């Protein structure tokens, strides 16, 4: 039972933290917004009002739509792989077996490797068409090694990022699976449900909420994938693996164009929000928000 008085007191107590967090967000955002309307390049002295020129240049850049498509492809591709793969792996790890603790630890390991390191290892030790592991495999089988980063840059990036995020999805889904009441499964078994229908009718619905959490959290991170691209393909060849964050990086740090980069940043924020709203609509009904 809270009285009006104590609620007001509670709000007053909370306000410093809330105000601080709000400022934390709004000050950089406001500055970015302000810069995005200026002609502001670090290498040319002085700034002047640009109107919407920065936005015009960013949105009419031939690279923009390609980058937008790539951003969505990375998010979509990695989500499908990690959610489906994560569910299957969780099912596997849920079985009682010898050395369970060690096996689980090994499965989670990729998540703790730094993105840049992951990308370097994949680029040089796995995907390199002359010295990589995949090339060696292809050669032993008598096939021609695939030049992954040259010919399938986006698929390669999706593969690398999926490898990184698979443990995260597996972990959350496994935890959810372990909270499933075993009596339900046993009851279904007694009623003669096959393993497949048990999976689809009991386990999958039970995982829905955890799956939602996985999708939401991963989307936030996957929209801003950057290190993996910088290390492996540099957004190329052409713009084949450039996503929106990488495009903003090119504008602001390779061209020192603060105005153009800020406009790109604002566009990226707007896009991220649109994606988030759609996601919330689609999967949010599983969460009590």
């Amino acid at each position, binding site marked *: 039972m809270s009285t009006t008085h104590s609620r007001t007191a509670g709000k007053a107590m909370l306000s410093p933290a809330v105000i601080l967090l709000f400022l934390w967000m709004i000050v950089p955002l406001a500055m970015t917004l302000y810069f995005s309307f200026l002609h502001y390049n670090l290498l040319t002295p002085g700034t002047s009002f640009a109107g919407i020129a920065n936005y015009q240049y960013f949105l009419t850049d031939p690279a923009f739509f390609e980058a937008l498509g790539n951003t969505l492809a990375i998010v979509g591709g990695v989500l499908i792989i990690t959610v489906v793969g994560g569910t299957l792996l969780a099912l596997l790890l849920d079985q009682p077996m010898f050395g369970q603790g060690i096996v689980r630890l090994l499965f989670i390991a990729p998540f703790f490797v730094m993105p840049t390191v992951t990308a370097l290892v994949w680029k040089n030790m796995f995907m390199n068409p002359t010295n990589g592991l995949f090339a060696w495999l292809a050669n032993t089988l008598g096939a021609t*090694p695939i*030049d992954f980063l040259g010919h399938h840059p986006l698929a390669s990036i999706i593969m690398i990022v999926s490898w990184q995020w698979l443990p995260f999805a597996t972990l959350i889904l496994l935890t959810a699976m372990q909270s499933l009441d075993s009596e339900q499964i046993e009851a279904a078994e007694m009623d003669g449900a096959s393993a497949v229908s048990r999976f689809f009718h009991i386990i999958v619905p039970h995982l829905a909420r955890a799956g939602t959490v996985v999708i939401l959290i991963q989307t936030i991170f996957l929209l801003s994938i950057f290190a993996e691209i910088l290390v492996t393909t540099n957004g190329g*060849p*052409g713009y084949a693996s450039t996503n929106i964050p990488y495009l903003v990086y090119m504008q602001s740090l390779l061209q020192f*164009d603060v105005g153009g980069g800020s406009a790109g940043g604002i566009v990226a924020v707007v896009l991220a929000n649109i994606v988030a709203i759609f996601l919330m609509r689609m999967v949010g009904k599983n969460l009590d928000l």
Partner: protein
Amino acid sequence: MRMQKNVIALTVAAMAASVSLAASAETLTIATVNNGDMVRMQKLSGEFTKANPDIDLEWVTLEENALRQKVTTDIATKGGQFDIMTIGTYEVPIWAKQGWLLELDGLPDDYDTDDILPGIRGGLSMDDKLFAAPFYGESSMVMYRKDLMEKAGMEMPEDPTWEFIGKAARAMTDKDAGTYGVCLRGKAGWGENMAFLTATANSFGARWFDMDWKAQFDTQQWADTLNFYVDLMNDAGPPGASSNGFNENLTLFQNGQCGMWIDATVAASFVTNPDDSKVADQVGFALAPDNGLGKRGNWLWAWSLAIPAGTEKAESAKKFVAWATSKQYLELVASNEGWANVPPGTRKSLYENPEYQKVPFAAMTLKSIEAADPTNPTVDEVPYVGVQFVAIPEFQGIATSVGQQFAAALAGQVSVEDALKSAQALTTRAMSKAGYPK
């Protein structure tokens, strides 16, 4: 936790304060690249502080791209973090023009500015005033495998043509054995594939801009350059070449997988070092190729030390710059590490030194550097300075995007024709955004 951090911070601050009170020394903050030569300078800098006890040195050592972003941001925003910056021949003319750099006059008498190689000195000067002192200079040249050349029944001339390189590369290639006739840069970036391709384009008579700053990618010369390069790499290059930069090609060459490699002269000491290279005793050198048009396809670059204009420590900073780029420093390195490890490519006197002439790649390095002319880089007249770059602020961004298009052409994602069309369009767009012709 937060409390603890504050306590630690305060303690550190107090300690720093007491130290600075104890010694009234001036501290110079030096930003530099993590290349072997600069790391060596850091190691040897004890000699400088011994001679100048009133100066302390603080080092910020970063990878090339990170350093470039940091120092550019710092100098453009007048951050004043650094008293001495390591910058390349690309930045010096731009920054000097902006008035961001201190003129290096009043250097000690024994410094001998006239001893600096003219090509390098020209690249670091504006109106005959020196704005940065060269620490080491480099060009590019052909490094090739004598044994494979012999096996192919050919002989490398000292000044090969592109036609010869094309023939030799195809003759040396044995894809089943994992030997590729030629390894060239394909990784996109203004300092990666575009450095090589711009220098190569010079020897084909191509240029970035005409005298009215109009992009030139729609010319026959560029089409010839790019077609030659893509065909050669498809026939005789390693797979996945569109992701190979300097380091990747170095690894391939040291592993014995390349017949020829056209790249930086500083690589010579790495490929001839038996500790790292399987083919150390089989490497020969030749000048970068040409097409008989009077220009060779080699570049010119120098990492140099410069002082930001706003500094309050001009005297001490000049002292250090003079020390690190002096003749005495070269002798110091030689006595500690041997002549092969001396920073190359800056001074005439080094190449006149009989001790240094014994180094196998010394003569070829000097010839390559002397063959490059930053003010007249290509066959036709140009409005810009720079051999493998165009010294305007917009170049980094433009050339990296163009490099992406050329990497895509190399990977076979787009045709050469389309890559050039895109390059022309994006360069024109960026130049009009930047307000050229100025």
